[in-house]
């Protein structure tokens, strides 16, 4: 101490004090002022662990299981722990190549050497079993159970829909989802996503630097328990659906069956369809691309999205509207020809007939005349107003508007507006005779098979419909999600329907659809065939029907693309389905065999070649008249005026 000089000593202490003060100031800032580090500390030690609930099962209306969950196993990897494993053996077990292995390993390592990540998605139970046996040899790997959807009967693919991983957009829009979650992408899986998925649980665990769990965070105060998804009971009759799919195999088109007294969809078939089991698990993306590339468009939900010209089935709507507006009466008859300038619409020889007979024989001139009488009626002052009223009636039958079915991606159909025709022909330069083909369901009309069935429901119910829907019960309670118990009335009064229904009965008993009669079993069937001209080749074969006449139990609309007369394909298919549903036996095995084995696909392949040619042609037209092309692209029913051929 003797050498210490006073001045130096003070500076010496001052220096230390300054350093201490600087430390204290910095600490104060770090610990008291700044709270960034408190947040970082939490994200360091708190791990959100998601507890996935199992997705709801789906049953048909009779309690038959249609969709269930099968356990699969995500193979997880912690790269740091992977040591001395037999790569060849490993790759053989899970079915990947050595190159795949090193690629995946690198990817996982880049993500994090300590944190577990998915090495291989969704190993099947069998693979898992054989892998699990040797798991002790593969340090750093473990399996995490997950579930995928399974479809025991492999039916109703479009209606049920499929699942897929959420994309960034969904995550951004909806806080519930996180990357890696699955979500319903179409069909019931999408529209009832909320009910099916249940509620995810979350628990917060404390983890150390190696991501090992060290216990609950604050005794689990912030943890939530997962809630399993609710089971759905569909309105669908799985047996009927399967039968209809068998009848529609190797055909393009669609079948929709509805219980008119409730709006419950009993069957909804698309041809071609696909096995829903193809769009799950590891093979999903590969199969999806294959299906997408198929020229017959198996992924296309024709029942709800394809626009077809309704053809003669549309005559019913026209007749009902005209009756209600007192344009015609049941006794009205017209000359047996419809003439526009030099063109004339004729029919096959039959005696001059009134409305009922005209429906029975599907008389084209008659309904062209009805349409003209309606649109040109003095009541409305101008054909523009006349058409507007006509359109209002058509809309009230659920055409050109969305019906509100409980499945996504429903299209509303096409009924041209006044403005549409003004654009094409010029304001005031068109009248009924310009667009008369609408009267017989041709022209610019586009109607989905679901809408065809719904129109038939309105007729069967004499004036109203319940929104067609596919989910009957959610869990144990009745499906109350979408105003399903509300009657929707069309503009036509109940008593007006009788004469049209009489006509429909005669169509089946003595008209174009004699094949569909179940009179021997004392069931009165009412129906109407259609043979829709279209620009894609042979006429579409159509049939709509309901039975029994009193207290109808089922409405069926059948649409078989490019197959000819309504009576050839659509009528037998619909009648077999009625037999199946109402009588539960098939008494005409020969017809059944002919329908099931009928293969129209070669025609379609030929057609698709033609269609490609046509695309090149329309591309040329596109430059001239963009409006028309829009028409071509959005509907199957391109403006095709009637050429005068007889149409049963």
């Amino acid at each position, binding site marked *: 101490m003797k050498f210490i000089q006073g001045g130096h000593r003070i500076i010496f202490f001052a220096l230390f004090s300054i350093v201490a003060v600087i430390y204290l100031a910095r600490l104060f800032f770090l*610990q008291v002022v700044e709270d960034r580090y408190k947040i970082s500390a939490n994200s360091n030690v708190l791990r959100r662990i998601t507890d996935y609930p199992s997705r709801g099962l789906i049953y048909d209306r009779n309690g038959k299981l249609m969709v269930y969950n099968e356990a699969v196993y995500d193979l997880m990897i912690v790269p740091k722990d992977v040591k001395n494993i037999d790569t060849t053996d490993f790759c053989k077990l899970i079915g990947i190549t050595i190159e795949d292995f090193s690629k995946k390993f690198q990817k996982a390592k880049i993500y994090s050497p300590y944190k577990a990540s998915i090495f291989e998605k969704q190993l099947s139970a069998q693979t898992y079993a054989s892998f699990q046996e040797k798991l002790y040899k593969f340090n750093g790997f473990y399996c995490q159970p997950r579930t995928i959807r399974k479809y025991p009967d492999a039916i109703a693919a479009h209606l049920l829909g499929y699942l897929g991983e959420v994309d960034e957009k969904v995550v951004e829009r909806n806080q519930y989802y996180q990357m890696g979650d699955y979500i319903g992408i179409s069909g019931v899986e999408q529209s009832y996503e909320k009910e099916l998925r249940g509620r995810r649980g979350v628990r917060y665990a404390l983890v150390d*630097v190696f991501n090992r769990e060290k216990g609950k965070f604050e005794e689990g105060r912030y943890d939530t328990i997962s809630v399993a998804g609710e089971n759905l009971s569909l309105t669908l009759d799985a047996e009927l659906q399967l039968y209809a799919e068998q009848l529609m195999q190797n055909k393009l088109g669609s079948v929709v069956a509805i219980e008119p007294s409730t709006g419950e969809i009993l069957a909804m078939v698309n041809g071609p369809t696909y096995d829903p089991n193809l769009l799950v698990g590891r093979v999903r993306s590969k199969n999806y691309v294959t299906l997408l590339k198929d020229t017959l468009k198996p992924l296309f939900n024709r029942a709800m999205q394809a626009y077809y010209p309704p053809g003669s089935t549309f005559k019913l709507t026209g007749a009902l509207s005209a009756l209600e507006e007192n344009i015609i009466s049941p006794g009205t008859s017209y000359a047996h020809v419809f003439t526009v300038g030099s063109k004339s619409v004729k029919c096959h020889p039959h005696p001059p007939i009134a409305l009922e007979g005209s429906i029975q024989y599907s008389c084209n001139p008659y309904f062209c005349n009805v349409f003209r009488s309606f649109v040109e009626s003095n009541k409305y002052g101008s054909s523009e107003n006349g058409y507007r009223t006509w359109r209002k009636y058509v809309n009230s039958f659920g055409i050109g508007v969305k019906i509100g079915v409980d499945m996504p991606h429903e299209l509303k159909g096409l009924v041209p507006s006044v403005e549409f025709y003004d654009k094409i022909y010029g304001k005031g330069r068109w009248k009924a005779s310009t667009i008369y083909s609408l009267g017989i369901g041709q022209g610019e009309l586009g109607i989905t098979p679901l809408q065809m069935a719904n129109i038939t429901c309105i007729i069967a119910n004499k004036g109203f419909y319940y929104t067609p829907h596919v989910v009957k019960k959610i869990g144990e309670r009745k499906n109350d999600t979408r105003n399903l118990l509300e009657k929707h009335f069309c503009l036509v009064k109940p008593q007006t329907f009788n004469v049209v229904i009489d006509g429909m009965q005669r169509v089946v008993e003595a008209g174009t659809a004699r094949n569909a009669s179940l009179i021997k079993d004392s069931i009165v069937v009412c129906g109407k065939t259609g043979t829709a001209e279209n620009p894609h080749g042979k006429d579409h074969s159509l049939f709509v029907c309901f039975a029994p006449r009193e207290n109808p139990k089922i409405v069926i609309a059948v649409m078989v693309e490019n197959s000819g007369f309504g009576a050839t394909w659509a009528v037998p298919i619909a009648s077999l389905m009625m037999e199946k549903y109402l009588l539960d036996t098939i008494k005409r095995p020969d017809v059944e065999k002919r329908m099931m084995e009928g293969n129209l696909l070669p025609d379609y392949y030929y057609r698709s070649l033609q269609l490609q040619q046509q695309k090149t042609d329309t591309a040329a037209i596109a430059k001239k008249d963009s409006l028309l092309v829009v028409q071509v692209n959005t509907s199957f029913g391109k403006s095709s005026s009637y050429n005068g051929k007889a149409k049963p």
Partner: protein
Amino acid sequence: MRRQRSIFQNIDWITVLLYFVMVIAGWLNIYAAVFNQQHDNIFDVTQNYGRQLMWILTALVLIVFVLVIDGKFFDAFAYVVYGVSIISLIAVLFLGHEVAGSKSWFRFGSFGIQPAEFAKFATALALAKYLSTMGIRFSETRTKITCVAMIVIPMLLILLENETGVALVFSSFVLVLYREGLSGGLLLLGVLAVALFILSLVLPKMTLIIALSIIAVVILLLFRNKTLVLPIAGILILSVGVVFSVDYVFHNVLEKHQKKRIDVLLGKETDLKGAGYNLNQSLIAIGSGGFCGKGYLQGTQTKFDFVPEQSTDFIFCTVGEEWGFIGSAVVILLFLSLLFRI
């Protein structure tokens, strides 16, 4: 007996108290830092805290031993101790055990001895002995050179062992020398040189040179003394030289990891997974403590090993996290008081 009493009478009890408070606080915090459920006995010698206790007790014995031994013993053996430690520093270069790139440990089974640690104490002892020798005056240039040599020799040896950190500790002997009468100017010069080094890493060269020139001009204008012109100009030129040579030193003399550490420290780089990991994690640990801390044994960052070298180099994180600002301040003030007492 009388002799004994006089020793205990001479003891600075406040320093002893400070010492014991710090030792026990250290031990408790090491226990918190490596705390785990399986070994919750603080006396468990298989764990770091158990071993720490062993060392504390050993040190106590040594303290008593040192107190009892006559001061003349140290007087006599100071140079011997210094010599032995220099020899061991040389020996470790050849016989040492390499740990993480530095060769500074002798290994004896599970125990290790780092001669560099002993060298610190040996140098201090030898320096004290030298300066207290009769007839030695610190004001003499010869004395100064001898002192510097005594410090620089072990320092260089340690640098050769690649223990830059320990070697830097030796530079703190400058403070001791200052207290013994070293000119304050030298100290100031050193501080300024370090400041210049750091500034030239952070700021663009031209900005720094312009700033230095302005300072020089301002000083000249303030004092208006012609004799100052030359030295100030000299210092200015020297500083500019330093500024330009810093880049070279930084890129060619320093090791890659050293460069990185400096960059991270200066905030020029945020390599959170590499060199910046320790820094960032310690900031998180200390910063999350708040004013009062999370409570003893409640620290999550330290308990779950987010900060490496938790029980040794980064023990302050445990204090910061579990005891908060209050605890950290107490530790700093304890150190300051101890420094003032010595």
